[in-house]
């Protein structure tokens, strides 16, 4: 077989990058389909104009690279199966530095390997999407669903004082919609964004509408590295050695995170209006908990559900407001207690916060959670 690459003649002009950010499906009509959660992310990436994917195989997220390895090349996109997650995130870093939309996806152990690169992206102020279809740990753990990466995702994960935008879908449609949002927020804030799903949301198959969300204003990427044609050179770096420079840089990042807290908080609530006890849960556990709320309601208990969609920024003000009327919260997680800390901090001692957690292995049933509700419902 001949090598595919052919050198062009010297005169031939090279085409500009096709990867202008902002989407390639301007005229696409909403399209109904049935898809796995992982596939929904891959579809959304393409629809959002991300034609650059770099990743390394790991269960349970392989549907994403498999879908994109098939669909990106015909669109003129680039797909690299890298030698490691370390290379993957650095390929994203490089591609994103040109102003193009780029992404990677992995699962927990792979996301651990990416933390260095994510920290550099936060320091360089580079957008980019990282999808974590998390599995159970620590170590090699297993491939069952887990929410054990909540701390890693919301506390930064890598070294240094930074935050990532973290979105937690709980349906296949949300996998799609939040992927769009993640790209937009990453571009808006020049910050990496993460979709934090798990094996359950990644593998479940549900109806999906491929639809273009409302466009939000995105600042021009005048920082992008495209060759200093007719302008001063751009530099993207995270090393600041001059007196005061790094302090200033860290304050600048802090201001961004504060702005995110003001403007980007998203959550969903269900039956909280008259609730005496509210379950706080995200992602797959919010699905189970919703059924538990319905079961409790059938038995006449006034129970509601509060579901953070943005894990960073965490909906702390909304929870605080809710705690002025509801005095009992039950946090349900697929771990031994992580988000519960944020719930406690948010309600600030104005309400009782209980916890029901399950380490990875098996999902709790709605009835199991209902039993917990009964323990604390007065």
């Amino acid at each position, binding site marked *: 077989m001949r090598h595919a690459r052919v050198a062009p003649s010297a005169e031939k002009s090279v085409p500009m990058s096709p990867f202008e950010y902002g989407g390639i499906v301007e005229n696409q009509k909403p399209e109904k389909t049935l898809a796995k959660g992982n596939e929904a992310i891959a579809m959304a990436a393409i629809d959002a104009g991300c034609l650059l994917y770099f990743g390394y195989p790991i269960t349970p997220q392989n549907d994403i690279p498999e879908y994109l390895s098939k669909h990106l090349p015909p669109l003129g996109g680039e797909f690299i199966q890298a030698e490691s997650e370390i290379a993957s995130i650095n390929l994203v870093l490089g591609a994103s530095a040109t102003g193009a939309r780029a992404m990677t996806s992995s699962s927990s152990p792979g996301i651990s390997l990416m933390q260095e690169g994510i920290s550099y992206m936060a320091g360089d102020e580079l957008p980019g999407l990282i999808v974590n279809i998390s599995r159970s740990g620590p170590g090699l753990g297993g491939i069952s669903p887990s929410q054990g990466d909540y701390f890693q995702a919301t506390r930064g994960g890598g070294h240094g004082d930074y935050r990532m935008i973290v979105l937690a879908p709980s349906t296949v449609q949300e996998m799609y919609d939040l992927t769009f949002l993640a790209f937009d927020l990453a571009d808006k804030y020049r910050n990496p964004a993460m979709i934090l799903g798990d094996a359950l949301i990644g593998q479940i198959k549900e109806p999906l509408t491929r639809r273009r969300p409302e466009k939000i204003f995105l600042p021009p990427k005048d920082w992008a590295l495209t060759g*200093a044609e007719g302008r001063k050179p751009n530099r993207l770096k995270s090393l600041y050695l001059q007196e005061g420079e790094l302090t200033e840089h860290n304050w600048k990042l802090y201001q961004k995170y504060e702005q995110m807290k003001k403007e980007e908080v998203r959550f969903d609530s269900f039956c909280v209006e008259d609730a005496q006890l509210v379950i706080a849960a995200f992602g797959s556990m919010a699905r189970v908990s919703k059924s538990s709320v319905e079961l409790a309601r059938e038995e006449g208990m006034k129970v509601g559900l509060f579901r953070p969609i943005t894990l960073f920024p965490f909906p702390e003000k909304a929870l605080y407001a809710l705690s002025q009327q509801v005095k009992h919260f039950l946090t349900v997680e697929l771990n031994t207690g992580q988000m519960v800390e944020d719930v406690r901090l948010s309600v600030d001692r104005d309400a009782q916060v209980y916890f029901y957690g399950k380490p990875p292995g098996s999902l709790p049933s709605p009835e199991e959670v209902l039993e917990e509700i009964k323990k604390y419902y007065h």
Partner: protein
Amino acid sequence: MELVFKRPECLIDIPFHFCPGCHHGIAHRLVAEAIDYFKIREKTVGVASVGCSVFMYDYFNIDVLEAPHGRASAVASGVKRARKDRIVFTYQGDGDLAAIGIAEVIHTANRGENITIVFANNTVYGMTGGQMAPTTLLGQKTTTSPYGRDFTYDGYPIRMAEMLATLEGSAFVARVAVNNPANLMKAKKTIRKAFQMQIEEMGFSFVEVLLACPTNWGMTALEANRRVEEELIPYFPLGILKERKMADYL
């Protein structure tokens, strides 16, 4: 009067911070001259690595991206895949490329990424204070091989150029030195050739440049220059190891 020697357009007019007798400045200049030669300053993106070479963005009058330690070749691949119409190069030291970044450079070469890597090999970790590198010669004393590098403990110095030349994906692999005018002129031509390979979309090009590090070798500039000739070149022979012609494509 005719101006016969000037600063490359691609280099900013400020003094290098490098130590007296260090060869980084010379290697920087050769890269800058190659970029000027092909008039590609406004379409080139440089990727800096970690170590003494991180300050590339202070010297090169081009767009520069700083890569995490060892990851420059992966970062450069990302830049190139997003903008195939740009010229992309990395400038990496031996600690960066041959130790922590060896997986990235091997796979970048193996994918045949159409980028250029300038690999600065001075057999030592420069910026962190002269620790042993994968390229440190046997018997060489460093701050972490105080008794001299012993292969029974530390293994052997890695010949990166030879290793990368074995990969089908690499298109141009060479090793040069800048310790005397004759070698310097060859180095200039070779670095230029590496960029030409990228411009012609021939694939991965790699130039290893043997550099002196008088500070961490505990030598004067002249002694360090002599060491390049007497110790480095015999172990790291100079020359073009591989040059793909179009017909070589598999």
